[in-house]
């Protein structure tokens, strides 16, 4: 029984189109999904529910009900097709129907339902295929689906039974922080937490958690998955430490379960599937750009062992991120981009920015403080940096509308928390440089990344927010124009470049700055260099303040041509207030002529190196409650109060390799082949072919013998 994808986007769009304009979610009472104990008991379906929504719900439910364990051997293409997210769930929270129905009480009705659905789904799939899978213009099928779903509604009524509910909760957050140089960073985070164990395979009903990712986790034995697609480069020196770091291009790192026997195979399969889900070129991840770091990447979630053989890490620095990656990312959100904070995610504006990074993090976490059970957490984050200078003609004031050309009108009805944070921390000890309108209801003080920050909080779920105006348009004005050009430098930042000239050798230099006035701290540097830059490890020098700095840990894995890249991991102590320069020389290999990219003179990318450090904070940090902390620190828990974890990515490098002139050989080959084929070939043929009349020979002794035998047998002779 194979599941087919419903045109879920279409259903959602039809939902949106049919939604009353008075704002149904806004009018409905706030619904706490994650809070409280789940409602058990037999499910009562309102028989008089509006046909279209009930039918849709039914279809989605049916699809969930009949979804068995994902066959592990099935190919990626099939899996991609079958793993589209289910359509929008509960339109009206009052008619909430928790729990899966497989283990439900209606034992006889369930098979019937399953059979009917398996009949019905091919039609739906056909419609989905006919109307296209990703683009608009398929909204007409929603009505047809609804019509097909109506008879099933009655069946469902019989099938409804008591279900064991698993809590899932969605929290959406938006953090707006003015950066030191005047730009504005907007960081979205959508956290879906699900109190179900995905690995057991018994999970079939997906509510808020996207099914595509959930089944991926279950089928491929993924323990942790971190995927980031980034366009641009976070300039740590002028923008400060980012809330969530990502290298330019695509980054994927995955911890697999210890039960996975062939990690490489699972990794390959996973990258291909993700490539399909996110429309990214992740299928270009192969052994030549995959490494297994030993120290840089630790599991961020619940883990009972850190055997790094279960880790795979790859970066594609060339990946260009654009709307085709954003759309599937938005589709994973429970509310899509129809309600809540996600309405701001307008691609046209998001890509009119200085930096765009979107990420998906899946990890297991403790369900509660006792940590006896596992919950799964999905974080979808998106960071955008808006250049207020170019858009605002030199003024550094901004507003939500200016940045996103939309304002917030409501929270996602499925979210249990929906908040907007604005960083209004005073800079340079001058208080109240910023003025925020509308005045925030609450102000939160937190210590984030070693710095004391003040946040204005707008809770979209509180009814008082939309009392005065129908929409929330956060505005920020600088009371005094910023005039100082000395920006606060972050404690840890780095720079990487290729030095030297010529096409034979070169040198990769990394400068790591520690601007902390009195504390030294260690940093783990991870360099992944493609094989065609042949590193000379004996030229590795680490110099701090004119003296050689011996790393206390070095892990080096040499490259194998066309198989695997160089991997260099070092633990380096950075003295206080110092610059550490790390250089390593390389030689540029000459590739085979088929190995060059179509644009070889553009150069070849070397992915960013990764710096992981526990940076001592300038001010003492309180031990904050990780789960309740509103911001983004909770992805990297701090070990103690005195330091915080920072991961930095340096610039990717563009290295020119010796490139043959591809135009000349092309012409020569074409011309030569033509000449040879046409002229020489025919002439040679004419000149060397000899024509002579073949005499019917009587053949040798063997033939004569054979003919004699044939004559005996009555067979015509040879």
């Amino acid at each position: 029984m194979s599941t087919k994808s419903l045109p879920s986007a279409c259903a959602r769009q039809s939902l949106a189109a049919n939604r009353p304009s008075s704002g149904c979610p806004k009018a409905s009472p706030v619904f706490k999904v994650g809070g409280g104990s789940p409602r058990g008991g037999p499910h009562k379906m309102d028989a008089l529910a509006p046909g279209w929504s009930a039918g849709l719900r039914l279809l989605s439910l049916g699809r969930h009900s009949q979804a068995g364990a994902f066959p592990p051997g099935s190919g990626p293409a099939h899996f991609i097709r079958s793993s589209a997210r289910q359509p929008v769930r509960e339109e009206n929270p009052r008619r909430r129907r928790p729990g899966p129905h497989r283990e439900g009480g209606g034992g006889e009705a369930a098979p019937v339902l399953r059979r009917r659905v398996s009949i019905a789904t091919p039609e739906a799939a056909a419609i989905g295929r006919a109307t296209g899978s990703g683009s608009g213009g398929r909204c007409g099928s929603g009505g047809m689906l609804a019509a097909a779903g109506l008879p099933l509604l009655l069946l469902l009524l019989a099938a409804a039974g008591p279900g064991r509910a698993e809590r899932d909760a969605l929290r959406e957050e938006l953090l707006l922080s003015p950066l030191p140089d005047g730009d504005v960073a907007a960081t979205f985070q959508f956290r879906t937490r699900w109190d179900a164990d995905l690995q057991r395979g018994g999970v079939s009903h997906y509510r808020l958690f996207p099914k595509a990712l959930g089944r991926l986790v279950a089928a491929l034995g993924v323990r942790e998955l971190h995927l980031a697609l980034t366009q641009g480069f976070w300039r740590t020196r002028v923008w400060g430490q980012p809330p969530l770091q990502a290298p330019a291009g695509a980054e994927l790192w995955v911890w697999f379960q210890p039960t996975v026997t062939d990690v490489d195979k699972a990794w390959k399969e996973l990258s291909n599937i993700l490539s399909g889900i996110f429309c990214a070129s992740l299928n270009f991840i192969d052994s030549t750009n995959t490494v297994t770091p030993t120290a840089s990447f630790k599991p961020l979630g619940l883990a009972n062992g850190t055997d790094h053989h279960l880790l795979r890490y790859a970066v594609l620095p060339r990946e260009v991120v654009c709307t085709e990656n954003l759309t599937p990312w938005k589709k994973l959100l429970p509310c899509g981009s129809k309600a809540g904070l996600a309405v701001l995610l307008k691609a046209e504006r998001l890509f009119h920015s200085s930096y765009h990074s979107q990420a998906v993090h899946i990890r297991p976490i403790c369900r509660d403080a006792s940590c006896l059970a596992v919950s799964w957490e999905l974080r979808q984050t998106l960071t955008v940096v808006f250049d207020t200078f170019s858009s605002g003609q030199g003024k550094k004031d901004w507003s939500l509308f200016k940045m996103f050309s939309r304002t917030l009108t409501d929270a996602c009805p499925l979210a249990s928390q929906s908040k907007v944070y604005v960083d209004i921390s005073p800079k340079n000890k001058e208080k109240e440089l910023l003025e925020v309108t509308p005045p925030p209801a609450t102000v939160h003080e937190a210590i984030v990344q070693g710095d004391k920050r003040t946040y204005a909080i707008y809770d979209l779920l509180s009814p008082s927010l939309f009392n005065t105006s129908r929409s929330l348009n956060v505005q920020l004005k600088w009371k005094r124009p910023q005039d100082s050009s000395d920006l606060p430098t972050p404690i840890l930042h780095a720079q990487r470049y290729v030095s030297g000239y010529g096409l034979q050798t070169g040198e990769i230099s990394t400068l790591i700055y520690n601007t902390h006035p009195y504390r030294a701290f260690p940093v783990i540097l991870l360099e992944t260099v493609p094989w065609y830059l042949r590193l000379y490890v004996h030229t590795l020098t680490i110099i701090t303040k004119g003296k050689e700095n011996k790393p206390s840990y070095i892990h080096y894995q040499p490259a194998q041509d066309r198989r695997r890249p160089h991997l260099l991991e070092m633990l380096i102590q950075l003295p206080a207030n110092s610059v550490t320069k790390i250089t390593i020389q390389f030689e540029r290999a000459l590739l085979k002529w088929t190995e060059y990219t179509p644009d070889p003179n553009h150069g070849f990318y070397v992915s960013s190196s990764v710096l992981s450090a526990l940076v001592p904070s300038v001010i003492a940090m309180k031990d904050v409650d990780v789960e309740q902390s509103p911001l983004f620190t909770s992805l990297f828990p701090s070990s103690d109060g005195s330091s915080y974890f920072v991961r930095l990515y340096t610039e990717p490098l563009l290295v020119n390799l010796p490139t043959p002139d591809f135009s000349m050989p092309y012409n020569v080959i074409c011309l030569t082949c033509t000449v040879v084929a046409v002229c020489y070939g025919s002439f040679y043929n004419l000149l060397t072919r000899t024509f002579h009349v073949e005499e019917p020979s009587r053949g040798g002794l063997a033939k004569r013998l054979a003919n004699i035998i044939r004559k005996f047998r009555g067979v015509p002779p040879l």
Partner: protein
Amino acid sequence: MPVAWLEKTMWTLGLEVHRQPFSRTLPFPDELRERYMVKGTNVYGILRAPRAASTEALVLSVPCSEGPHNNQAVGLMLALASYFRGQIYWAKDIIFLVNEHDLLGMEAWLEAYHDVNLTEIQSSGTLGRAGAIQAAIALELSSDVVTSFDVAVEGLNGQLPNLDLLNLFHAFCQKNGLLCTIQGKLPRSDWDSLPAFAHSLQTLLLMVLAQASGQPRGDHGLFLRYRIEAITLRGINSFRQYKYDMTTVGKTLEGMFRKLNNLLERLHQSYFFYLLPSLSRFVSIGVYMPAFGFLILVLILKALDLWMKLSKSETGGSERLWDADHATGEESRPGLLALVPPLVICHAAGLALYFLPVLGQHVATQHFPVSESEAVVVLLWGHGGVWVGRDLEEHQIHPPALGRDTSHQPRLLQAPSNLPLNPSRDGAATASLANLGQALTTLTPNKFLPRSHLNLHFFSLKPFHLILWLPSLIQSPSPAFLEPLEGLEGATIRTQGACWAARAGCQPMASFPPTTPSPPKPFSPPPAWAGTWGAMSPPQGQDPGCSP
């Protein structure tokens, strides 16, 4: 240089500002101030391209020294920076660089940017970097009135930027109606007349001279070592009637930067070796390199000849060696008069080849029912040497070039032999040398190709031209060429060519005393020489072709 003001202005424009102080101890005192220590500061602002990872960059550099020398350029650069900052289409970072002390500052900046130290310039300060620089434009405006733009291409050691960059500039000049010159010479509209040709020749020779000097003709010249295509644009006030306002100049620069910004790859697959008779025409390496190649071939053949002699003498025994020493002591130098017959014969042959096709065309149209244009095709099949003849003929109409040939010939021929001994750092010396040889050999007007001309026939026919012409290059007479080759029935054409070439090489390699004219001795080939290639060398270590 007002460093603080520049920094502040650039910061207000929204650039990422950096400064780079540098100092250099000169080996000799400065001409103007008589100082040994030069200190300066480069200021530059980086315009970070949105959503780009700082992997590629473009540079607009403006030299700025004390005084109001280049103030206009600084102003224009700042205006451009302010305009560029507001645009969203940049895919490469743009570095706006104000360098002090012209070339010194530029070299300091480039070395610091690429983290190499070639000239012991000390520089300090943290540098902002923006990845691999793809192209650079240096801007100099001598006054606020610009009537024309002069473009300088010659870099350090005669290196040249990619021709496409120059084409880009030329295209934008034409689009915006700017008057642009090269070597300070305006292009002429007519191409066929003799004065136009002389004009082009002059321009080309100026470029050859500039390249041969090895000096960069502007700040751009230092970029070329780092494989950054760069040109210098100089705004000239030549007191013409029509002037250009800064908007036109700015538009041109903006257009160039946008074009460079749109490049997916580095500039490549165009010409890196060329000579420019005007801004819109060039002489490609494909035209002048074969000639140079044949000059080098002479050396190879000579070396082959010597090697064969060596093997001969080894087998021959000691008394032959002794005889050879005896014989070489007696031989005398040929005179200049000996040059005349080969020259006359060569040029007569050239003239014949030049005019015969034309005559043949007439004859063909008279005797065959074909039109004139078709007759050319017939003739082309008949005479492969139409172009050969024209080449030869045109050398005759330029006596200066020919005169240079003869007088500079020893140096010219020795130059290639020095080539492998001088490890030229970037291959640039090779280029300038090649240009030198090129200037002497291919100054024919019909090779001033319009761009985008597929010059296959020139390329392919050049060898013939050179083989025929080589005897006229050499100073020693070529009796083998003059005399009827009675004894050479068995020898192949290849042997002849080798002999000529060997002769061409052998004489200038020796010290060249002022010779007394002496008539060439008749050539009497020994019977052994008429044999195969292996037996080509005559006995007694004498090359019959090379010694008179």
